[in-house]
């Protein structure tokens, strides 16, 4: 299908926003840059998460698993391979892992999938811990000349890729199939859609993207160990941010990531032990007040104003 003028306008606006975001390291200080890295990281994770979970309504808690695998790809690989090869390798490993998880669980109902994905991160963490105990090593040092700004730019590039991919999927047969599956899986099957195949294909996206994100961020941690790389908190943060923003639109998760990152940062500084409380409260807010996230809220406001003749 050809691009409409609206598509061109949206592409131009996104390009300008990206260019502006890319200037952040020169415009502001190092604290702003570290917040920028956090926002870029969660934007990538939450947007790719929503690409899968938005249409299918499957809540994946596997982000930490893929992310951790990615950090270990860099941690182990940096000694032996040039850095630029590590990101695609992480992406492929993430995709293969996602395909295995998908084949094993996506034919089952949603609940099994949630539990399995939560267990997956813990499982891989335990395996690596066990391997370290056997081999006698502790953590891994990732010493590179990669700066915070480099990490930030890589994440921005990855975010641009994720948005382009999400946009392309939305216009494709796969995207249409997923909307049908999200509405009524039985209709989807009887219309000729391979529902399991479509879901597995789509699950490769968050799997691969989260692994690449982990690979990009490994140099920032300097020292990686299983409890850091596979922290289950990451999976929950991504879910909360994506749902807070709303999964109905491609830009939805971004609207959740930005305020949540600042809130998280504020709570971490003032009352550092209450971050879990923040996570719980945010979850309550989403369930009771914002079931469709900020995206849904904007839609409601727009409709109200429209019906009163204001727009």
């Amino acid at each position, binding site marked *: 299908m050809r691009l409409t003028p609206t598509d061109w306008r949206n592409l131009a606006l996104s390009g300008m926003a990206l260019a502006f975001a890319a200037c952040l390291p020169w415009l502001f200080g190092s604290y702003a840059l570290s917040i920028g890295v956090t926002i870029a990281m969660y934007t990538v994770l939450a947007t790719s998460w929503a690409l899968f979970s938005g249409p299918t309504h499957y809540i994946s808690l596997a982000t930490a698993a893929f992310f951790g695998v990615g950090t270990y790809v860099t941690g182990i690989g940096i000694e032996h391979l040039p850095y630029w090869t590590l990101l695609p390798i992480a992406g492929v490993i993430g995709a293969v892992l996602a395909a295995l998880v998908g084949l094993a669980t996506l034919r089952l109902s949603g609940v099994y999938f949630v539990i399995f994905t939560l267990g997956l991160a813990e499982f891989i963490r335990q395996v690596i811990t066990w391997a370290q105990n056997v081999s006698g090593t502790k953590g891994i040092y990732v010493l590179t000349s990669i700066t915070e700004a480099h990490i930030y730019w890589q994440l921005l590039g990855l975010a641009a890729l994720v948005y382009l991919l999400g946009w392309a999927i939305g216009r494709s*047969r796969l995207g249409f199939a997923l909307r049908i599956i999200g509405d009524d899986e039985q209709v989807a*099957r009887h219309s*000729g859609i391979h529902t399991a195949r479509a879901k597995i294909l789509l699950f490769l996206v968050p799997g691969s993207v989260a692994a690449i994100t982990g690979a990009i961020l490994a140099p920032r941690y300097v020292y990686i160990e299983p409890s850091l790389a596979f922290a289950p908190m990451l999976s929950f943060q991504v879910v909360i941010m994506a749902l807070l923003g709303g999964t109905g639109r491609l830009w939805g998760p971004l609207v959740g990531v930005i305020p949540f990152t600042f809130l998280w940062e504020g709570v971490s500084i003032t009352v550092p032990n209450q971050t879990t409380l923040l996570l719980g409260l945010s979850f309550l807010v989403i369930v009771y007040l914002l079931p469709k996230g900020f995206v849904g809220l904007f839609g409601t406001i727009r409709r109200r104003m429209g019906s009163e003749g204001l727009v």
Partner: protein
Amino acid sequence: MSATLSLRGVTKRFGGLVAVNAMDFDVMEHEVLGLIGPNGSGKSTTLNLISGALPVTSGAIALRGSPITQLPAQDIARRGIARTFQLVRLLPSMNVLENVMAGAVFGHRQRWGYEAEAVAQTMLEKVGLSGRGHMAVGQLTYIDTKRVELARVLAGEPRVVLLDEWLAGLNPTEMEVGVALIRALRDEGRTIILVEHVMDAIRSLCDRCVVMAAGAKIAEGTPADVLADPEVIRAYLGDDDA
């Protein structure tokens, strides 16, 4: 003439209950076959077995000679068997046109882009909904939701159309419209299996009927013949009236 769709000894067991017992029948090309019988006789289950919604326990189903017995629903749909549902199933987040496009994009004949949209528009015209493509499915009247579902089924250009009590729940005026619509499909030469309770519709629409009772076939023939069959009358009304 070889059969478009044939069932041989098709059986479905739910634990100890035999819902469909050794069903044998053929559907010829361009034929409208009525599948009738009292409530609970296994008509809808038979339709679910043909469309792949339920796995067959034993027996064989073939479409134009090639077996489809153990295929999943999506493969059966792609081979060209499309169905409506007893309780209408539309896609609530999409408008009328997109609902119909679902059939055009993934059905037996697959299209994409403007071509799929054009097919969907044509189908909407055919079922009498031209110009309503932009409407939300929540705004539709009951018969219109049935029309949308029928348009979605037709949009994939299936070889066989399965209609599961498509006329049920319509008021007398809507019934006339509905019967006229199915007659139009019949006149186009479509192959249709009709599960139906409305006797007038069966008489005027079906070339042939298969009558089921308690999961088994008890009669087969023209509507007039089977409806006069004492065994069929007994199945519907009980022994005293036969």
